[in-house]
């Protein structure tokens, strides 16, 4: 049995709006092992994004324990958590979230600026991952000069350039046409199979979910 990468026990999460508590996640318990590709499915508003954000350490649980690659991230302070994220997690968003003023190369280089790598080393890494996502020839294009599918591939390159253990993707194909979506899924599949990345992906798309090794469903904050 491979190692447990994500270990969630009795996790609760509510948001507060004008002193009214909005419960979002209700007693979630979940284990994800190294090398798994998990698809999180469920209706809109069921809490998928919320759960993903908690796993990725950009939001905090209200209650419960949340251990990712051996660290109880619920206990980390703000800057420790930021550092932890930069070392352990790669993010892929539905709307790519590239910085429009930076080229593909510079966008991918961004996470490396927080490391001690030299300029030459950064260049090597960036070129390598851009080749992996098949955009070696588009390095100096700006996001607006790229198609949606290409932008998402740049985003994926940015997510893997620091070689994180865990990749989280929130509806990575949600904004793409069928063909581009397929390319992204093939790429994620390859990252999982070939590069042994553990992936947690939120999706509405059953075909996307088929790529995953495990599917879980979230409904009104409860996991099934």
């Amino acid at each position, binding site marked *: 049995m491979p190692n447990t990468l994500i270990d969630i026990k009795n996790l609760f999460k509510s948001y507060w709006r004008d002193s009214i508590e909005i419960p979002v996640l209700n007693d979630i318990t979940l284990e994800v092992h190294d090398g798994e590709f998990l698809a999180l499915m469920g209706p809109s508003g069921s809490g998928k994004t*919320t759960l993903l*954000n908690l796993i*990725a350490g*950009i*939001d905090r649980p209200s209650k419960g324990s949340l251990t990712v690659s051996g660290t109880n991230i619920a206990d980390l302070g703000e*800057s420790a958590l*930021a*550092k932890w*994220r*930069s*070392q352990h997690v790669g*993010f892929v*968003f539905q709307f790519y*979230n590239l*910085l*429009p*003023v*930076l080229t593909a190369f*510079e966008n991918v280089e*961004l*996470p490396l*600026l*927080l490391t001690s790598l030299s300029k030459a080393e950064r260049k090597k890494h960036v070129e390598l991952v851009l080749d992996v996502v098949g955009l070696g020839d588009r390095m100096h294009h700006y996001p607006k000069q790229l198609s949606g599918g290409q932008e998402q591939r740049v985003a994926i390159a*940015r997510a893997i350039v620091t070689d994180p253990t865990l990749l989280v993707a929130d509806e990575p194909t949600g904004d793409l046409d069928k063909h581009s979506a397929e390319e992204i899924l093939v790429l994620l599949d390859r990252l999982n199979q070939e590069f042994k990345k553990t992936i947690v992906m939120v999706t509405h798309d059953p075909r996307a979910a088929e790529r995953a090794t495990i599917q879980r469903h979230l409904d009104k904050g409860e996991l099934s």
Partner: protein
Amino acid sequence: MRVLKLIFKNSLRHKLRTSLTILGLAIAVMAFGVLRTVLDMWNEGVEAAAANRLIARQAVSFIFPLPYSYRDKIAKIPGVETVSFANWFQGVYIDKNNFFARMAVDPETFFSVYPELLVNQKEFETFKQERNSCIVGAEIAKQYGFKIGDVIPIEGDIYPGKWEFVVRGIYQPRDKSTDATQMLFHWTYIDERIKQDMPGRAGQVGWYIIKIKDPAQAASISEQVDALFKNSPNATKTETERAFTQSFISGLNSLLQAMNFVSFIIIGIIMLVLGNTMIMSARERTREYAVLKTLGFSAGHLVGLILGESLLIAALGAGLGLLTTYPIVAGISAVMPKGFFPYFFVTPTTIILGASAALLVGFTASIFPIQRALRTRIVDGLRFLG
């Protein structure tokens, strides 16, 4: 270095908006610079006035003359070092627009009560010997091309008739604030001709300049001078040169205060202009800041990014504004008649004030955007739709 590139690229994102902001800042900083220069001009005039010089004038008005006979009486007062005097001659040099001060003075004493007018000994000696000679300031010598030996014709008005003066010396200003636009000639030369043409107006001086030994005695000596002539038809009013200059300006005091106030209002406007731009930019970039935080960038990085951009724009605006201040001030002083404002130049203080105001504005304008960027939680930032 790495963040610098992003700051640059960010500020160039909306080229038009950034350019307009920089232009707005530049105009405001320039207006600030010009206003301060005008204010400095007045203040320098007051500052340049020496504290050890008293001016005695006719008590009713500056335009009425005083008898020449006062000279010896004033000189007898203890504490008085030198008594000199001058008359406002005015007149026209070729054209009415050629304005510079023309004064009939006492050649023996005038330059010793005004040590800031530097004239070389040889020129000074010839000047003293020739009754119809004159000494001109270096600035008007340059402007009108006056050289030693030239004859300057003046059409008299206060002292009617045609007058001619031979240039026998050119004085240099000792300080930057020294007036180098005066033309000075012999009082006796004027007085002798007046004695024949209009005997009633002979033997009169415009005002006395009294050099005293100890500036601390200024008040008591002034009182003694005025006491001497209290009951005569020509009573005097004596005050320090500084007070005298100030009383010239005092009519303008409220205007000057208003200008001072306006110059600081301008700083406020710059702040709003830049603040507005920065708030707009930061709002648009809410999601990007959330993404940067997600990637592990710290609060310090975001502060650097926003503050850096704000300072960059402020610096460009201030730089441009201060650079344009020089030609504008030069332009204004060129269209102003020479001699009205001999102290019209941009002081280092104005530059420092303008630059630090812009710096302050750069800091202040980034406060709200920084606060907003730091306070927004990542999850809220990512959900933010422009």
